[in-house]
């Protein structure tokens, strides 16, 4: 079976018309996983019973039963989501052997829609990273060029979709973690509005910044997965109901804002050139464009690396070696905590916990955490002001193409942090944003993908889907 160019939409049509079965489709993905996962390290575990699940869907389809919108679609789940009865580790040693006791809401909704779960995908430990090198189970490799990172933290999910190891995947995005790996791997990644998809059952990193989102081959597929997973959830008090505005976009009236004050320090000039080309492409499609100003997004990374570690230090407190996870004996109870946490957490996780403890501590709280939350409000106001005159905003997804494994992780942690420069602003604001492939740069004979990021006002994912589809020439 040729999986190249296959989409969720096409696969659903082919299974409905009897061109192929879910069992055949699932078998094809499992064969690809067998062939390529040793090199890519995209999956941490494979669900051997996926074929059985696929057969069940085929039988129901043969009987003419009413099926869900993903009936028989093979999908990958980031190792940060609870999947009942499976080992879920957030790519950390601290959760080795941890068996989830329930399904995350996003996972439950995928299952109910008929998706076939193939396995758990590799990631930066507890989603802390932008390269998927911080996994306790080895780095993920980019299917476009296996010497390079796939981006992170949902690198396994992006590599699985780009490498033909899953037809769709889900990830989580706290500062870049769905959009950046999608951009590095040449696929589509959506970070919806804060709360639009429930986070119940997602292992929390920084709760005011965490989002759940799909990674897919096309914008149309991202829309299908978003529609399946979205909605208010009594188990997540921050979840919100989608506005149901989809389909109401009038393309004639769309004005796209182009920020004139984007940070350029450390940004590859080819990325800025690619943005210009993308803006011309959008204008040719009939969109009006307008220069806008977001003066405070230059503070997005500094405030992010205060707020995020602060919340990390609180969320990671639950890993104490008592109720679940790794336990290392110390001299007393406190010794148990301290030794378990040192042994269980990797370097970046420990760094963020200690940094977060510092910025929240008495005497430093006002200068760091409190100031950062007020700066966050400035960024929110920037976007709110911009959306008074435009329907969407475009900017690059990343400051450069995928880099080589080991190049940034070996240097200062700051080098990795600035990878979030274009993506973190919308984690602060909660606005929906999508990354779509926008071209390539050539390096050492490889075509490395770049991404265009499209941002819309809260709950207007429909605007992203509409512009994204036209930009990619879908339908």
């Amino acid at each position, binding site marked *: 079976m040729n999986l190249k160019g296959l989409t969720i939409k096409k696969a659903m049509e082919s299974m409905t018309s009897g061109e192929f079965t879910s069992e055949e489709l699932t078998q094809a993905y499992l064969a690809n996983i067998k062939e390529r996962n040793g090199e890519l390290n995209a999956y941490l575990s494979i669900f051997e019973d996926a074929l059985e699940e696929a057969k069940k869907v085929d039988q129901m389809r043969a009987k003419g039963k009413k099926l869900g919108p993903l009936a028989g679609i093979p999908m990958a789940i980031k190792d940060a989501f609870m999947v009942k009865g499976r080992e879920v580790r957030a790519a950390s040693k601290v959760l080795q052997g941890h068996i989830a006791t329930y399904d995350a809401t996003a996972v439950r909704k995928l299952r109910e829609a008929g998706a076939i779960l193939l396995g758990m995908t590799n990631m930066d430990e507890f989603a802390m990273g932008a390269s998927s090198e911080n996994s306790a189970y080895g780095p993920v490799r980019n299917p476009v060029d296996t010497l390079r990172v796939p981006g992170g933290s949902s690198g396994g999910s992006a590599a699985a979709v780009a490498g033909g190891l899953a037809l769709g995947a889900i990830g989580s995005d706290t500062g870049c973690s769905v959009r950046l790996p999608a951009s590095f791997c040449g696929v589509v990644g959506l970070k919806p509005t804060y709360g639009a998809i429930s986070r119940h059952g997602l292992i929390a990193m920084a709760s005011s910044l965490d989002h759940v989102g799909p990674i897919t081959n096309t914008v149309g597929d991202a829309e299908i997965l978003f529609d399946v997973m979205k909605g208010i959830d009594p188990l997540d008090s921050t979840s919100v109901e989608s506005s149901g505005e989809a389909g109401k976009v009038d393309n004639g009236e769309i004005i796209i804002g182009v920020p004139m004050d984007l940070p350029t320090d450390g940004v590859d000039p080819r990325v800025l050139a690619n943005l210009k080309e993308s803006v011309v492409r959008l204008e040719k499609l009939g969109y009006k464009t307008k220069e806008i100003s977001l003066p405070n997004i230059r503070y997005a990374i500094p405030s992010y690396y205060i707020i995020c570690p602060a919340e990390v230090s609180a969320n990671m407190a639950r890993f104490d070696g008592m109720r679940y996870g*790794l336990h290392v004996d110390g001299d007393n*109870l406190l010794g148990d905590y301290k030794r378990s946490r040192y042994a269980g957490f990797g370097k970046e996780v420990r760094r963020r916990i200690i940094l*977060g403890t510092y910025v929240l501590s008495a005497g430093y709280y006002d200068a*760091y955490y409190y*100031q*950062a939350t007020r700066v966050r*409000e400035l960024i929110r106001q920037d976007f709110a002001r911009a959306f008074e005159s435009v329907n969407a905003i475009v900017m690059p997804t990343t400051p450069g193409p995928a880099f080589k494994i080991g190049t940034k992780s070996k240097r*200062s*942690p700051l080098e990795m942090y600035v990878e979030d420069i274009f993506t973190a602003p919308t984690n602060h604001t909660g606005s929906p944003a999508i990354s779509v492939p926008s071209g390539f740069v050539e390096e050492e004979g490889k075509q490395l993908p770049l991404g265009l990021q499209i941002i819309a006002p809260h709950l207007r994912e429909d605007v992203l889907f509409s512009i994204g589809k036209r930009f990619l020439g879908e339908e």
Partner: protein
Amino acid sequence: MADLARIDMPDNELEELRGQLDDILGYVSEVQKADVSNVPATIVPELRNVFREDAEPHRGGAFTEAILSNAPSTENGFLKVKKIIEK
């Protein structure tokens, strides 16, 4: 700070971390340059009640076995930890 965060860090790693944290704190201190004089001291978003009615409890013990099977040490359905109060 490592003590406050309850992580038993060896001295050589503390040394490396100290340098990194200085770099990071130097960088994030940029936020102090932002003019926040027009931002209210406290920001309270729109509030809504997110609590469910206190009803329909699940059967006692329905999840105990699955949850405890993830615990490092248990005894008779309880988590087993070191004693806290020394004599």
